[in-house]
């Protein structure tokens, strides 16, 4: 019974870590994409 509970906790912890990593990666990606696109648009702007 205790083993089942440990397995469930371990599986939940693994899922939570992956969700957290996915969300952080998504936020970083949005930031970097915004920076790259802004940089490109500023570079293309006539002086």
């Amino acid at each position, binding site marked *: 019974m205790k083993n089942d509970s440990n*397995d469930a906790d371990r*599986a939940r912890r*693994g*899922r939570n*870590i*992956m969700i957290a990593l996915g969300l952080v990666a*998504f936020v970083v*990606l*949005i930031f970097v*994409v915004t920076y790259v696109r802004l940089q490109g648009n500023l570079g293309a702007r006539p002086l």
Partner: protein
Amino acid sequence: MTRAMTETAVPTAAPARWQDYFQLLKPRVMSLVVFTGLTGLVCAGKPMHPLLACVAILCIAVGAGASGALNMWYDSDIDAKMRRTRARPVPSGKVQGADALALGVTLSLLSCMLMLIAIGWLAAALLAFTILFYAVVYTMWLKRSTPQNIVIGGLAGALPPVIGWAAAAHAVPMNAWLLCAIIFMWTPPHFWALSLYTSADYGKAGVPMGPVVWGAAKTRLQILVYSLLLVPLCQVPLFTGLGGMVYAAVAAPGGLLFLILAWRLFKSQAGDGGVVGETGLYEVKAGSKDARNLFAFSILYLFAMFAALLAERMLGVPPGLSL
């Protein structure tokens, strides 16, 4: 829609791990889609920021994964009946159907949104169309209702190079649609060759694949007809400024071999037995070896042609038949 909208997942004691959710994304299909999408992106020949190119490919991969999750949610009832698919996360009870649906919808929205922000509306719209086409038109409608399911549904698998091209060029010229047409025409002989030696599985699940509905002989004829259409189509890039000498060296002899294998399959007895033994799903009977040979070679042929196009662009080989 004939599917009973019931929860088919069997609860098990084993808790779902993140790897089970990853399996919902059909990683092997994702890798193929990444490859064809990358080919479209590179063949467009437009300068692109490397990071944005990577994001475009990531969006295509995640969109394909989301389609896979939606497919596994909706098809869990028939997946449970087929030996090839019964170990998938939903029918095996590792993941609940509602969780697969939530994952599919979330990743669909995120991939299309990121494509829109990073690349533009055309690539995002094509990606959204591809996901919807696979999940709704193919999975929910065609798959259970007609033996033409993989012919029409094959469009979803054929669109990634168009999305890749649109991501790089913000346009989809004829050559982009030519890549799409090649995969579209390649899909029926590829899947029907497979279904000739797994037809009992499809029959048991009530999926109207060619051999189940038409019988093996007519399926072999259909494979030959589609092969006769596919091989000339594969030579067209040589005349449209898409493929060069490397592509010609792959597409022409490969096409000839494809036709030989399709002809051998047509003349064979493949699929006539119609039954797959309980001991091995992919155990190929002597009479079905020609089907297995065409199935295996079709993967190699498509991969080699797209790899040749990629190599030509990277090495700067000029298109056409001139040296």
